């Protein structure tokens, strides 16, 4: 299962940190963030609840970059 989300972030380095944070979230198989298009592509593990996972992803991202946002 793969989904793309719009994100809000200010700097490229922060985007890279968000990517790392999303990748390490439980339920996420892989994640890539494009700072240029302000998008995050998330591949979920099989059978997980995307919404719940994305909430966790957002929380993890806020931890590394307080000002970021993900359009879930």
């Amino acid at each position: 299962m793969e989904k793309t989300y719009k994100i809000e972030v200010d700097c490229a380095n922060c985007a890279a940190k968000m990517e790392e944070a999303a990748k390490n979230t439980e339920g996420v198989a892989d994640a890539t963030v494009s700072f240029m298009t302000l998008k995050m592509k998330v591949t979920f593990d099989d059978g997980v609840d995307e919404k719940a996972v994305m909430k966790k992803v957002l929380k993890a991202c806020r931890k590394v970059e307080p000002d970021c946002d993900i359009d879930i």
Partner: protein
Amino acid sequence: MTRKQKKTLIRILTAAVLMVVLQVVLHFFPLTGLLLLLLYMVPYLIIGYDILRKAFLGIIHGEIFDENFLMAIATVGAIALGEYSEGVAVMLFYQIGELFQSYAVGKSRSNITALMDIRPDYANIEKNGDIEQIPPEDVKIGQTIIVRPGEKIPLDGVIIEGSSTINTSALTGESVPRDAETGDEVISGCVNMTGLLKIQTSKEFGESTVSKILDLVENSSMKKSKSENFISKFARVYTPAVCIGAALLAVLPPLARMFFMQMEPAWGTWVFRALTFLVISCPCALVISIPLSFFGGIGAASKCGILVKGSNYLEALSEAGYIVFDKTGTLTEGVFRVQKVYVKQENAEKLDLFLVKGKPAEESLLEIAALAESYSSHPISISLREACKEDLNKDRVADIEETGGHGVTARIDGNEVAVGNAKLMNKLNIAYEECTVPGTIVYVAVNHMYMGCILISDVIKENSKEAISALKESGIRKTVMLTGDNKAVAESVGREINIDEIHSELLPADKVAQVETLLSEKNAKEKLIFVGDGINDAPVLTRADIGIAMGALGSDAAIEAADVVLMDDDPKKIALAIKLSRRCLGIVYQNIVFALLVKALCLILGAVGIANMWIAIFADVGVMVIAVLNATRTLNTKKLM
């Protein structure tokens, strides 16, 4: 500017004005002590509160060693050392740099999106005699949409009424408009120029060409290049390393002075140097400019009708050394046409006698062949019928007998006619003259008498020869052509366009094997490009380092399998793509080298105390601005076209 940017701008201006006022006031009333500190705190907090907040949150979350932390520690440190104005200035310039960066990135982002401004906003449908605008997503397959002159075609479909000229430049980079009339297929993203069209849709919006292309371009920056991965890995190691370096710079020299050199420790000087060090070291110039360069490069390529599916492929293109072409449909048009008709002169008179009187013998021969083949759907038969200008009267033909792999025998106006290859002639014991010109030869005999032959072959694309020479000029070491066609045809095409190596009579599996051999033969650093028309080349496209699909308009399979998609059929675009990628990579390397050199130089100068805070600010903000400006050059395609 976005609201956030405007807010930052206002904060910058306010802080700058306050600083100027403060300097003027201090000139007349020299203040000291706590009051002075409090006065400096006003502009400092105005400009830096968010940085301080983020740095604080970062420390709480265990995310130290980021940009905010660097800036916070540098400025707080400077203020603690009594360098109030420097502290505020660093924060001020850092914010100016950030604002500029976010503005420049936003600008290039919208520039690139504008290049790809093909997304249709609405579709017109007819409802109770009125035209109604609905979102293209709501149109169903088979529904009729209306496209007025000047509007974008929102969905793929077939014209059922009207004719017009269509501008495909947004998709293909080709500026010459195409004619389209009833029955023609049209693709979304093109602009209807002259006439009103009624189109029956053949795909949903999500499956239409325009959606596919947009999706592809937008996702391309997700596939990161080696340089981008290098930078993000580099930043992960670099920032902590610099922080540790700065800490050592603040602590070690004073200790050394105290214990080994019996001198004053001069803590203030060394801490200040360490802070300068921190400001210089900010990695933003690299972190921002490199993805921006790739994004710009991909945007510029799409503008020329070259879709690159990822930064990694753009990077790989610049390292191309070998290029392998499929022949049919790639270097040639892929359409069989009658090239020549040879009539056996001695028998020409008889030909005239047998059939149509008073016509040039060539035309008669073609007509006989076309008539005999008039019921066949073989590509050769189709090209014969197309070449024959006459309306064919099928009633003249009787007793048609088709032999697979040989040809056709039939009775035309009562004469026995045989049309086919050499095997057919041998089988019927007809004394024919063998024709050795490369291509498919169709021999024609009437009443067991050989009358002549017709040469049918594929046509080489206009630009193929130029494309090969442009590729060689751009440093491609070896050009190879693979084809399933026979040796004579392959060699004549290869010679004509100057290709280095030709492999003919290959089955699809042999093509993969050939590519494997070439892959093992080239040296590891070079990349191998395979160019095909994408219809039956999918395995080879995937196997090659870079798969380029041609003439992809309308072919979903090609868009899926290839790494680079050429929107028009022009093989010359490959050399252009390589040029674009080389320039993009050139800019990337320029930025890496420039930023690292300036930073390294300033770091050394900062450590020995020659560079002050102002040089440090240049090394951070200035270098970033220059790198970003340099990166935006990738967008310019004019010089390369």
